[in-house]
């Protein structure tokens, strides 16, 4: 009896959970728990008591992070396209961590959306009532269908625990057609997020409002997707105690460079075409645009511009982080910072519950990702 209790005490809760850094798990779990409390509290409080939103600012940080997170979760469709459409086998090892980012990202998106809805009890209404003109209607359907796609794409890692082999074989047979459907659904709703803002020419500042918004949102979601795929791959290797392949990250970095150049040309070209260069000198909005483009696009592109730099550990972490920051800022600009408010509108300063629930949802997604990569999702090399 005594030996049993001693062995129980000596055994850590999660053996070698995060390469010996259990405190990360602890902090994430604490934040996630706080987020759940805040989120459940909000559902019983209504939006006046739990947010700083008002009729002039009726979308806040929930929507900003939501739309940012959808772009980040683009890691799933980006890597699925790289591996299953373009058959670039050398990137296969980065696929599973990225697909898991995609799935957990969309789970987070759904949680944030439900918190933001005035009638969370009716979240399923888009299945019953149709409006084919509505970007949000299309986005709702695509997110639902694409989450299903991601579950099928991720499923082989979980199906191997089953005593039967046929579910695994079925999932493997489906993987290519399902991936192509996933790429299609992602192209639709990532671009439709830009279309969503086309409905507000009177509210979105001219530097951001352009008929090109759907294309810009699509291209930037690929940038965010490639960036998060690089970081997820490196983190997954570290968690497993395996050496990360520098050439793999450098290769994805090269792809990021080219997509980033396309994005930069589109943004600058749009400014020229719309004859809006003068607006850049026009106070706060101009500076915000320059910050978004310089820190989030230009600087990472410079870092990625040379083959030797792309192989450097610093660049492989800094460049993706800058791109992700830039894409998140872009979504926040469209949702909040570059919105034109009526005169006398109250200034929006997010409520503590908005912060806690957002941070909690992001922490929960990160925690689930860490644990799945450590204990369930296998490294591609060992899987084969």
């Amino acid at each position, binding site marked *: 009896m005594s030996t049993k209790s001693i062995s129980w005490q000596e055994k850590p809760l999660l053996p070698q959970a995060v390469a010996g850094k259990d405190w990360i798990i602890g902090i994430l779990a604490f934040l996630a728990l706080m987020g759940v409390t805040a989120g459940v509290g909000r559902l019983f409080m209504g939006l006046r008591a739990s947010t700083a939103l008002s*009729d002039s600012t009726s979308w806040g940080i929930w929507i900003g992070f939501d739309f940012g997170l959808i772009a980040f979760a683009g890691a799933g469709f980006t890597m699925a396209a790289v591996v299953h459409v373009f058959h670039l086998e050398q990137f296969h090892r980065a696929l599973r961590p990225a697909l898991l980012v995609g799935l957990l990202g969309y789970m987070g998106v759904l949680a944030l959306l439900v918190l933001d809805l005035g009638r969370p009890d009716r979240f399923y209404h888009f299945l019953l009532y149709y409006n084919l003109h509505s970007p949000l209607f299309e986005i709702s359907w695509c997110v639902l269908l694409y989450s299903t796609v991601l579950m099928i794409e991720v499923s082989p890692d979980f199906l191997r625990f089953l005593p039967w082999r046929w579910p695994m074989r079925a999932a493997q047979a489906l993987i290519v057609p399902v991936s192509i459907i996933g790429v299609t659904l992602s192209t639709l709703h990532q671009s439709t997020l830009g279309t969503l803002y086309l*409905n507000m020419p009177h509210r979105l500042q001219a530097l951001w409002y352009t008929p090109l918004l759907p294309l810009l949102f699509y291209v930037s979601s690929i940038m965010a997707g490639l960036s998060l795929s690089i970081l997820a791959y490196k983190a997954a290797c570290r968690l497993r105690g395996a050496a990360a392949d520098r050439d793999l990250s450098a290769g994805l970095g090269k792809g990021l460079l080219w997509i980033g150049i396309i994005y930069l040309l589109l943004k600058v070209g749009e400014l020229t075409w719309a004859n809006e260069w003068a607006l850049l000198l026009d106070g706060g909005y101009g500076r915000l645009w320059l910050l978004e483009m310089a820190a989030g696009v230009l600087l990472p592109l410079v870092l990625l511009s040379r083959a030797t730099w792309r192989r450097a550990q610093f660049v492989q972490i800094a460049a993706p982080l800058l791109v992700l920051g830039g894409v998140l800022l872009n979504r926040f600009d469209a949702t909040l910072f570059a919105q034109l408010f009526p005169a006398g509108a109250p200034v929006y300063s997010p409520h503590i519950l908005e912060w806690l629930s957002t941070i909690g949802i992001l922490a929960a997604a990160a925690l689930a990702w860490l644990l799945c990569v450590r204990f369930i999702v296998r490294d591609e090399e060992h899987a084969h």
Partner: protein
Amino acid sequence: MTRQTITLDTLEQGQELSRRSFVKGLGLGAAVAGCALVGDVQTAAANSTATNGAEDEAVGVLIDLTRCSGCHACALACKTANNRPQPDVAPAQLDSGAYSFIDTRTLANGDEAFVKRQCMHCLHPACVSACTVGALRKTAEGPVVYDSEKCIGCRYCQYACPFGVPTYEWDNVLGLIHKCEMCFDRQAGGEQPACVAACPNGALRFGKRGHLLAQAKAQIASTPDRYIDHIYGEHEVGGTSMLYLSDIPFAQLGFPTFGETTVSGNAESMMQLTPALAAAVATVATGLHLIFRRRQQVAEFNLRQSKKANQE
């Protein structure tokens, strides 16, 4: 030598195969895209016939700001008709408790001016175009109405509306959107909207939009010193069912300046591309998959062959 020939044959067959399936895929995609486009053209045609001429027959309200005394009778009657709280307190803004209010504005010369605000009942409402679940609807009769049973409270309509009209019930745990419906239910019973019936100065006139426009133009023509030569809502954002006459330029009264195009035009043309875009992406992705998989197979085959050759 023979080995070499086999490889080449496989390569060519493979390319032919992938090319054929790629072309087949393209054809299928084009067919789907074609159907989608035809569908779009048909709906577009249906839309235009539904609005041509019918716009003039649909009802609206002509608001003559030169006759408004700022007595708030319209706003109070609105509250009563819509069962809003505190029906005897004049509202100072649009919110879930007031679908209409008198906006008292101080002009540059110190004078006060009164402007009745409420939903403009656009002919091509952006809120209707944006609503996720189709809870907002432009009726053939004219009013833009709201189905509270469908609404999910996403508040996209608040961003799409160029006049900042829809308001949300922030204090309710399960909040809904609120806006003026031009007393659609009263109209069904043969009555005028409550605000029109309550105005003691005859500043509000209810009728068919075509008639109201003709009357407004006649008024401007007969008393040009009383009005500025602009009917707000005749053309703004593609036209609205609520029309304004004024003696002060509308920009000075806080009316936003808009062109004749609808706010939701860009988004709607993009949304109509959705089926074609889906078909195109799926087709191209399938084609690329077939091509690159074949290349990979051929490369692997060649690698195996050369390894075998080396071993021998």
